């Protein structure tokens, strides 16, 4: 019985794995080994990881098992196996950003969010693949070539948190961290049949990472409950971080189950249908709305303005910040950057301070406009697709990528700071998953989690897993 359980441990949601570690049915070491077996079997093909830390993960697990044997209280994520996007610094564990520039960088510190996760008992098993510096279009010439989708091994995983999406989907980890500056966690979550929340700006501190005003650290998870557990552990005030909110984190996991009937959800149909949505996206979105209605939500058609303007503002800020960080090394280490990455990074050199300030002002105005829109219409959230495209190939076409159309639904809510979440919504004709998105009011992340939980209970998306051949 126990053997069967251990063999199938990695198939269970993170929330179930924690229970088994807590009650002693399995040890943390057994959980690490179950996931390492999956990594050894599937990562060579999927390329989800840049660095695998088997030794470190087993050491972390042994410490947890000793604590448990001594009757100590274990943390809420005890024994959970995590992959961390390789742009998030981890102490004594290489953090390359998938760039030759940082190929050998071993941070001497953990980012604030990593400290929180470790304190909650989570075990970091490795660093996941990403577009170089989370910014460029991936190519086979990258330090670590792009990951492939577990849902269709012939298709690249969507980024930039591509490895986090692929690793979570393939059960190589219980969950993973990504970062989302314009959709970089929600988009891969959508393309991997996962849940991911970009939390309200300031809820999860970026302290210990590079400065970025509108990129949020986001969990990529298989179930809504997993997402709530992760966010609960990640969130919290960080006094050294001037963007961190001094507020107590609600017990999301205790509050997640609620009756959502009667909740009003805004549907910006005119805006959504103006996007170049692929047919699979349209079908999945309509089905998503139908399920929300079945759950008792009231769908309210709304006019949504200024999404292009807000996306453009976010684009300017992202470019400006990216150049600011790389200005020295672009000059001194030009050849260490990928050929596409360095051109993308250089764009910001041609922006003025006034361009940046204009974009920031437009961003602030959009934030107020969108908050008012929710309030005046008494909406819990608005519903949109996550991406107009069901395929990474199309979103990566240079003309689509440079125009940012793939981020037309996601990026506006980076500059506004509103919480925004991908939910699984179906599959396209190439077996690539399609996501749908809910975006809610500032500091009302709990309502999104509650909607996700009700939706997850009603649908079977989170029970599905790809067929992986060894």
């Amino acid at each position, binding site marked *: 019985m126990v053997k069967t359980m251990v063999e199938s441990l990695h198939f269970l949601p993170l929330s179930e794995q924690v229970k088994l570690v807590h009650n002693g049915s399995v040890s943390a070491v057994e959980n690490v080994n179950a996931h390492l077996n999956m990594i050894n079997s599937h990562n060579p093909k999927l390329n989800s990881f840049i660095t695998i830390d088997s030794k470190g993960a087993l050491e972390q697990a042994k410490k947890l098992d000793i604590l448990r044997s001594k009757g100590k209280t274990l943390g809420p994520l005890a024994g959970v196996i995590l992959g961390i996007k390789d742009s998030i610094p981890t102490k004594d564990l290489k953090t390359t950003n998938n760039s030759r520039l940082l190929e050998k960088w071993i941070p001497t510190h953990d980012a604030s969010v990593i400290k929180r996760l470790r304190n909650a008992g989570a075990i970091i098993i490795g660093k996941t693949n990403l577009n170089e510096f989370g910014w460029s279009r991936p190519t086979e010439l990258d330090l670590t070539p792009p990951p492939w989708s577990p849902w269709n091994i012939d298709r690249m995983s969507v980024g930039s948190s591509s490895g986090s999406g692929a690793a979570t989907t393939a059960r190589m980890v219980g969950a993973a961290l990504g970062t989302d500056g314009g959709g970089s966690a929600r988009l891969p979550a959508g393309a991997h049949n996962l849940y991911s929340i970009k939390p309200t700006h300031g809820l999860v501190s970026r302290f210990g990472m590079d400065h970025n005003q509108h990129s949020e650290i986001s969990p990529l998870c298989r179930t809504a409950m997993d997402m709530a557990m992760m966010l609960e552990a990640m969130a919290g005030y960080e006094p050294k971080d001037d963007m961190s909110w001094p507020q107590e984190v609600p017990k999301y996991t205790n509050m997640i189950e609620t009756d959502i009937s009667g909740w009003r959800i805004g549907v910006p149909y*005119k*805006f959504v249908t*103006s996007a170049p949505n692929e047919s699979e996206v349209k079908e999945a979105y309509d089905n998503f709305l139908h399920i929300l209605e079945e759950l008792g939500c009231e769908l309210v058609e709304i006019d949504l303005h200024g999404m292009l*303007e807000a996306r453009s503002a976010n684009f*300017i800020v992202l470019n400006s910040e990216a150049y600011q960080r790389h200005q020295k090394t672009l*000059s001194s280490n030009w*050849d260490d950057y990928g050929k596409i990455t360095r051109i993308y990074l*250089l764009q910001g050199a041609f922006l003025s301070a006034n361009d940046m300030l204009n974009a920031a002002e437009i961003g602030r105005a959009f934030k107020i406009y969108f908050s008012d829109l929710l309030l005046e219409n008494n909406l819990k959230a608005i519903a949109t697709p996550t991406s107009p495209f069901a395929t990474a190939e199309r979103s990566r076409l240079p003309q689509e990528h440079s125009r940012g159309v793939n981020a037309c639904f996601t990026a506006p809510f980076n500059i506004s700071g509103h919480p925004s979440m991908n939910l699984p919504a179906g599959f396209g004709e190439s077996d690539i998953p399609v996501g749908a998105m809910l975006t809610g009011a500032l500091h009302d992340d709990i309502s999104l989690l509650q909607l996700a939980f009700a939706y997850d209970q009603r649908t079977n998306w989170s029970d599905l897993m790809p067929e992986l051949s060894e």
Partner: protein
Amino acid sequence: MDFTDDEKFVEKVRSIAPATQQDIEQLRELLKGLSISTELMESLIQPFGIEIDFSKMSSRVDGENNG
């Protein structure tokens, strides 16, 4: 944002990094998109004392406004 003067543009790029001609051409293409964004931002900034009104902004993904 100005990259229309070819000589000054190339001079600026080369002052930052040892970019090849191909790099410069790719950058020029990318900057066309960024330039559209910065011009859009400039056009939205209002005179002193007037609020930016998002309800009058675009309603479509391509930036058009159908009301």
